[in-house]
C-alpha cells in the first residue's frame, strides 16, 4: 500500500445501552470530518440493556461499503468484548482493555455460547496459552498486537475531579475518552475528534463536557504512551467535500419524503422501526416554494392493519407505504393480494432479518426474496426491488412510488438488517435528480357521466387504466377483493376473469419492456470479464471491493448486481450469462434464493453458490477468500462462509 492510502478498521464493543453506538458515531463523524470515507457496521442482540453489542468503523481514502476482518484497533471496556474480539485484531494493531479487569477463565463466562467458548479455548490450548483473558491478551501480543491497558476507573475519577462531572456521567463519558484515546494513538487531529463530538451531541451541554474529555484523553495518551513508536497514523485529508453520514433506514425515509410520501403505517419491529420513527420525527418538512409538507405516520395494532390502512390511504390518492421485516410481511400477505387485485399503488419496505418465525431478530439475512416474489395466494403483478447500499436505498425508496403509481400495484422494496444499521458516508442526495411519475389518475367529472359506475378496470393495451380517487365527483366504482368487472362488480364469469387477469398481468410485461435496463441491473468491474459474480442487495459493497482488489492483482471480474428482482431481468442478463465463466452467485441465505429465481427464469444455474447464513454480513476478506478458492479451482458448487467469532 502506498503511503497516502489509508484503510483502518476500528471496532468498539460493550454492553447494549452503554454508549457503544454513540462512541462509534463520534469516531465515524470525526473521521468523516477529516475527509475520509467511512463505513459503519452495527451488531447487537435482541435486548435493551446488557447484552454484547459492537460497532465496526472503517476509515479509508477510498469509498468503502463493507467491513473487514481483522480489525486494526479494538476498543474494549469489559471482559466480554475482550474475549469475543481479541482474536480479531490484526498483527500490528492495537488493543485497548481495562487495566482494572481481573483475569477470568473463558469457561466461567456464562454469557458466551458454548461453541464460541470451545473455539477460543482450543485456539489458546493450541498456542500453549492458558484459557483465560490473560491468555487471549498474550496471544494478541505474540501476534504483534500492541496491548494497551487503560485505567478506565482512574480516568473516570479524573473526569469527576477535573471536569466536575457526576460519577454516572463520567462513566458514560468513558466512551468519548476511548474514542479520543484511539484518535491520539493514530495521532489524529484532536479538533476533529471534538468535531465528531459536536456533530454527535449537537447543541446539548454534553458537547462541551465531552470535548473537554477529549483533551484530557489526548493529554493522558501523550503522557503515558510512546505514540511515535506506534504503527498506525491517520492524518486529515486536504480534500474534505461535504458528505452525508447516515444509516440505511434514514436514507429510505429521506427517499420516501423526497418522493412525497403522504401516509406511512407501521407496527414496531426490528430492524424496520427506525425508519418510521425517523419519518414521524421529520413529519413536516419545507417545500422548495417556502411552504411545508407533511407525512402522516400511523402506528397500527398489527401488520394486518398496517397494510390495510396504507392501502385505504392509497385509494384516496395519497402516496402510501408501510415498512416491516419478515414476520410483518408474513401478516401482510393477504393485504398484498388485495392491493394486487384492486390495482392499488402500494409501497412495502422490507428490512429482512434472520428467519423463520422470530429467527434472528437483530441479525441479517437475505432470506425473504422468494417470499417477497411470491407472497400471497393467487396471482397478481408486483415489483421487487433491492438496494445495494445507502445511496441506492434513497433512490430506490423514491423510485418505488413511481413504479407503484405508474403500474398501479404493489412494490416491495427489499433491504436487510445490514443496510438498515449501516452507517456510511455518501455524496449529498440530490432531489433534483429524482423524477416523479404519478401514473394515470382519472379525471372522471370532465369525461362525462358514468351511470353504471366508472370503468376503473377497463382493459387497455398496457393493462393500465385511469384510476379515480375516493371522493372524486363522477368517479364512483366498486372495489373488491373478489374478481370483478370493469366497474368493479363481483363476477365469476370465465371470460371476464380471463380479461381481468390478463389485464393485470400485462402491466408487468409492459413494465419489463419500458423500464430501462440500468434500473434493473448494474454492471461493475470489467464488463468483458468472463469471471462473473451475480448478486442482489447488501452484498454489493463486499463484492465491489473484492473485485477491485482482484483487479489490482490482475484478475478481472465482472460484477452484476440485480436491482429489480421481479419482474426478473432475464433478457438483460442473457448476454452476460452466455459469456459467464464461471458464474458465481453470492447471497446471505442458506439456499441461494436469487440463484433459484435465476434458474427458474433463465434456465441457468450458477457454477458456484457462495452463501453465508450465520446472520452476519459477508466481510470483504471472507468474500476474497471464497473468490480465490474459486479461482484456484478449490471451491465446490456450494461455498459456505463461516465465522464463529462475530
Amino acid at each position, binding site marked *: 500500500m502506498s503511503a497516502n492510502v489509508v484503510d483502518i478498521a476500528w471496532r468498539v464493543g460493550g454492553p447494549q445501552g452503554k454508549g457503544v453506538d454513540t462512541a462509534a458515531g463520534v469516531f465515524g463523524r470525526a473521521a468523516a470530518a477529516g475527509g475520509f470515507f467511512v463505513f459503519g457496521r452495527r451488531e447487537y442482540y435482541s435486548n435493551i440493556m446488557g447484552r454484547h453489542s459492537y460497532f465496526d468503523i472503517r476509515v479509508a481514502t477510498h469509498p468503502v461499503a463493507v467491513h473487514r476482518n481483522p480489525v486494526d484497533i479494538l476498543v474494549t471496556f469489559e471482559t466480554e468484548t475482550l474475549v469475543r474480539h481479541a482474536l480479531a485484531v490484526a498483527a500490528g494493531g492495537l488493543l485497548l482493555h481495562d487495566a482494572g479487569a481481573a483475569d477470568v477463565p473463558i469457561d466461567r463466562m456464562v454469557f458466551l455460547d458454548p461453541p464460541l467458548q470451545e473455539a477460543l479455548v482450543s485456539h489458546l490450548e493450541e498456542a500453549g496459552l492458558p484459557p483465560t483473558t490473560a491468555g487471549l491478551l498474550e496471544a494478541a501480543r505474540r501476534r504483534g498486537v500492541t496491548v494497551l491497558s487503560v485505567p478506565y476507573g482512574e480516568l473516570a475519577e479524573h473526569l469527576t475531579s477535573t471536569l466536575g462531572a457526576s460519577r454516572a456521567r463520567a462513566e458514560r463519558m468513558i466512551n468519548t475518552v476511548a474514542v479520543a484515546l484511539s484518535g491520539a494513538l493514530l495521532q489524529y487531529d484532536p479538533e476533529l475528534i471534538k468535531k465528531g463530538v459536536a456533530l454527535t451531541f449537537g447543541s446539548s451541554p454534553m458537547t462541551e463536557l465531552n470535548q473537554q474529555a477529549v483533551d484530557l484523553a489526548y493529554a493522558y495518551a501523550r503522557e503515558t504512551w510512546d505514540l511515535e513508536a506506534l504503527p498506525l497514523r491517520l492524518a486529515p485529508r486536504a480534500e474534505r467535500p461535504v458528505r452525508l453520514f447516515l444509516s440505511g433506514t434514514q436514507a429510505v425515509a429521506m427517499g420516501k419524503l423526497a418522493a412525497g410520501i403522504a401516509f406511512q403505517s407501521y407496527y414496531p419491529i426490528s430492524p424496520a422501526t427506525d425508519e418510521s420513527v425517523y419519518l414521524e420525527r421529520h413529519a413536516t418538512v419545507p417545500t422548495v416554494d417556502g411552504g411545508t409538507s407533511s407525512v402522516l405516520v400511523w402506528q397500527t395494532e398489527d401488520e394486518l392493519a398496517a397494510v*390495510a390502512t396504507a392501502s385505504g390511504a392509497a385509494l384516496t390518492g395519497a402516496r402510501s407505504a408501510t415498512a416491516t421485516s419478515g414476520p410483518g410481511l408474513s401478516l401482510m400477505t393477504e393485504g398484498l393480494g388485495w392491493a394486487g387485485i384492486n390495482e392499488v399503488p402500494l409501497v412495502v419496505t422490507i428490512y429482512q432479518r434472520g428467519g423463520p418465525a422470530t429467527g434472528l431478530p437483530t441479525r441479517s439475512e437475505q432470506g425473504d426474496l422468494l417470499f417477497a416474489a411470491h407472497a400471497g395466494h393467487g396471482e397478481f403483478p408486483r415489483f421487487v426491488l433491492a438496494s445495494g447500499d445507502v445511496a441506492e436505498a434513497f433512490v430506490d425508496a423514491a423510485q418505488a412510488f413511481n413504479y407503484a403509481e405508474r403500474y398501479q400495484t404493489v412494490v416491495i422494496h427489499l433491504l436487510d438488517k445490514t443496510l438498515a444499521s449501516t452507517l456510511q458516508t455518501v455524496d449529498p442526495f440530490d432531489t433534483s435528480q429524482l423524477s416523479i411519475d404519478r401514473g394515470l389518475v382519472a379525471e372522471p367529472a370532465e369525461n362525462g357521466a358514468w351511470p353504471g359506475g366508472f370503468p376503473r378496470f377497463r382493459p387497455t393495451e398496457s393493462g393500465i387504466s385511469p384510476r379515480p380517487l*375516493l371522493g372524486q365527483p363522477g368517479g364512483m366504482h366498486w372495489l373488491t377483493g373478489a374478481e370483478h368487472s370493469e366497474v368493479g362488480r363481483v363476477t365469476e364469469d370465465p371470460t371476464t376473469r380471463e380479461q381481468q387477469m390478463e389485464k393485470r398481468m400485462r402491466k408487468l410485461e409492459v413494465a419489463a419492456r419500458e423500464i430501462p435496463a440500468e434500473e434493473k441491473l448494474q454492471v461493475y468491474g470489467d464488463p468483458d470479464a468472463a469471471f462473473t459474480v451475480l448478486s442482489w442487495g447488501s452484498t454489493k459493497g463486499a463484492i465491489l471491493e473484492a473485485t477491485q482488489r482482484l483487479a489490482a492483482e490482475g484478475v478481472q471480474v465482472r460484477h452484476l448486481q440485480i436491482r429489480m428482482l421481479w419482474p426478473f431481468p432475464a433478457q438483460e442478463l442473457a448476454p452476460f450469462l452466455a459469456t459467464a465463466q464461471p458464474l458465481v452467485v453470492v447471497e446471505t441465505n442458506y439456499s441461494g434464493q436469487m440463484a433459484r429465481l435465476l434458474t427458474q427464469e433463465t434456465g441457468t444455474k450458477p457454477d458456484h453458490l457462495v452463501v453465508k447464513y450465520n446472520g452476519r454480513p459477508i466481510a470483504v476478506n471472507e468474500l476474497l477468500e471464497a473468490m480465490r478458492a474459486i479461482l484456484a479451482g478449490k471451491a465446490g458448487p456450494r461455498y459456505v462462509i463461516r465465522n464463529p467469532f462475530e
Partner: protein
Amino acid sequence: MSVATVTVKDFQVDYPNDWCPGCGDFGILNALQQALAGLGLRPHEVAVFGGIGCSGKTQYYVNAYDIHTLHGRVLPYAIGAKLANPALTVIAVGGDGDGMAIGAGHFVNAGRGNLDLTYILFNNEVYGLTKGQASPTLPLGAQTKSLPEPTIQSGINPLMLAMASGYTWIGRGYAFDIRGLVRLIQQAIRHPGLAFLEVLQPCPTYNNLHTKAWFAGKDRGGLPRYAPLEPSYDPVILPGTDEATLQARMAAFIAEATRSEEPIRTGVFWENRAVPSLGERLVQRLPNYLSEPPAKKAVADGHGRPVVDLEPLLAEVAIR
C-alpha cells in the same frame, strides 16, 4: 344557487341482490340509503367499506364509493382512507364474525383514535356466508340450525367491548325497525368521532332462535322483544362532566347494555362529546392536515420534480 336535493334514489343502484329472502340485511341497507340521503350527502362524498360475509355485501347496493375489503379488515381500510381524506364520509359495515372474531383486534384498537367514522355491526349471531357456524356473539349453550351441538363458548357483548375500547358514540338498533335505524345511523354519522352501531339482524336461513317473529314477540301476543331506552336514560357526556356524573352514566350504560331481561334496548347508549376527535389531534401535530391532507398532498412541480426541500434533513447528517 339552487342545490338539487338528494333523495334516497341517489343512493340506490340497480344491481341484483343475492341475500336470502327475509334477511335482516335488507332492512339495514334500506335504512343506510335513507340515512345518507336524509343527511344531504352526495354519493361521491361517501365511501362505504364492507367486511366479508353476507353483511359485507351491503355496499354493493349503495351508490357511493364502495370498497369490499378482507375478512376482518374493514376498519383498517376505512381508517386509512379517512385519515388520508378527512373530507370523506366513511361508513364501515360488517358481520359479527368479521368484527368480533377475526377483526376484534382492529375493533378494540380503533377505539383509541376517535376517528370520525361510523361502524355498523350486523349481529346475526352466526357466520351467514359460511353457512351458519356460531359467531362470537352467540350466547353460551345456544344451538342455531347449523350447529351439531350447542355452542360451548360464551358470547361477546359488542356494546361493552365498544365501551371498554373507547368508542365515543355507541348505539343499538334492530334491522326491521327501519325508522329507528335511519335516525340512529344519521346520529352516528353526525357524531364528530368514532361511532359504533350494533344492529340486531335476523338471519332467517341459519338463526332459527332469534327470528323476525321472535323479535316481534309473535309468541307473546305481539309484544316486541326490543324497545327504545327509557326517555330518562341520558347517554351524553360533555366536556367538563364531573366524575360522579360520568360514573353514574357508565353504570347506567352497563346496566342497559348487559340486561338479561326483555326488552332488549335500542337507541343511543353512549355519546361522549368530551373526547377530541382524531382529526383535531392530528391538526395539532400536522398544521396543514386539513388544508392539505395526505390525499391532496402536492408531490411534484410542473416538471415532475419533488417539491420537498430535504436541505434541513440533509444538514442534520451532513459532515461539513
